[in-house]
């Protein structure tokens, strides 16, 4: 068979991941519900977010079982976004600072 059918995995793994995604979503909702603030809030939100994203891509989208050539072609370019994120943050800080100086003395 040239192409015996593609991704074949036991149903159980999807159900487990599904359950895990429910737990993680509930957890991130509770972060808001219990009014966690500051670094604790941010750490929890980002950890839950990345875990959920990772599970979806790895298992539901079968990235875990693809060849590395495809995995790297898709995953590595997204790291460029970190650069955009950094530029955005720098720019935002500068804009905020300038607005403070020119528009609102009340900020300082």
């Amino acid at each position, binding site marked *: 068979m*040239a*192409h015996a*059918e*593609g*991704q*074949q*995995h036991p*149903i159980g793994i*999807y*159900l487990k*991941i*599904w359950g895990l*995604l*429910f737990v993680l*979503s509930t957890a*991130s*909702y509770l*972060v*808001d*519900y219990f009014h966690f603030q500051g670094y604790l*809030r941010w750490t929890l*939100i*980002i950890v*839950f*977010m990345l875990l*959920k*994203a990772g599970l*979806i*891509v790895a*298992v*539901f*989208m*079968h990235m875990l079982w*693809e*060849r*590395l*050539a*495809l995995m*790297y*072609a*898709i995953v590595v*370019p*997204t790291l460029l*976004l970190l650069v*955009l*994120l950094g530029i*955005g*943050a720098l*720019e*935002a*800080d500068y*804009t*905020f600072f300038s*607005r*403070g100086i020119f*528009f*609102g003395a009340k*900020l300082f």
Partner: protein
Amino acid sequence: MTQPVLTRTGQSVPLPEGVQGIVADWSSDQRAFKKVPWGKAMMWIFLLSDTFIFSSFLISYMTVRMSTTEPWPNPSEVFALTLFGKKIPLILIAIMTFVLISSSGTMAMAVNFGYRKDRRKTFVLLLITAALGATFVGMQAFEWTKLIVDEGIRPWGNPLGAAQFGSTFFMITGFHGTHVSIGVIFLIIVAIKVLRGDLDHERPGFLTGRKGKYEIVEIMGLYWHFVDLVWVFIFAVFYLW
């Protein structure tokens, strides 16, 4: 694990794995993405470009939110609902999240049953996925109505604080909702193809004329999981910030 592939001489040679595999795949005289139907590779590349679109939106949102000197409306309160006489923060968004995750679960199972050639189960699961997706869009329509009519939030300003709240909110959730709506339409199309047996009998599609195969269910699934994936990020950075 090495899996054999057919070569012209009829002998099977194992594909190299690891870093060596990447080099071998990319430098081979054939296609770079082995063991993947090209439709699936193309969907992945489309999703990569879509990732950049949504990331640009979310990063611009971060930039305007960090740079505004006006107070930002508290999403926890804006998206609260009064249920059973009690005000519960962010509950609508939480329900939407669960609905979308459930649709991702049924989609993953539809792909699985598709490869097992279980037509009826695949069809039913695809239909449930589409129904959950439609529910999500319906709830979003409700949310938009509430914000526009009751709270007076507009893309150019709102009574709660920073004007950027409205513009980024409608832009990001609108774009995401459009993706979900398109997904629902395609889910229904794929479901009908499955039910009619187009994929079992390799009937050509009406648009491209390509032979029907169960890999289209998986390709549809990739798109659908991506929509869920984007929601994970929107939920975290827009609603929980």
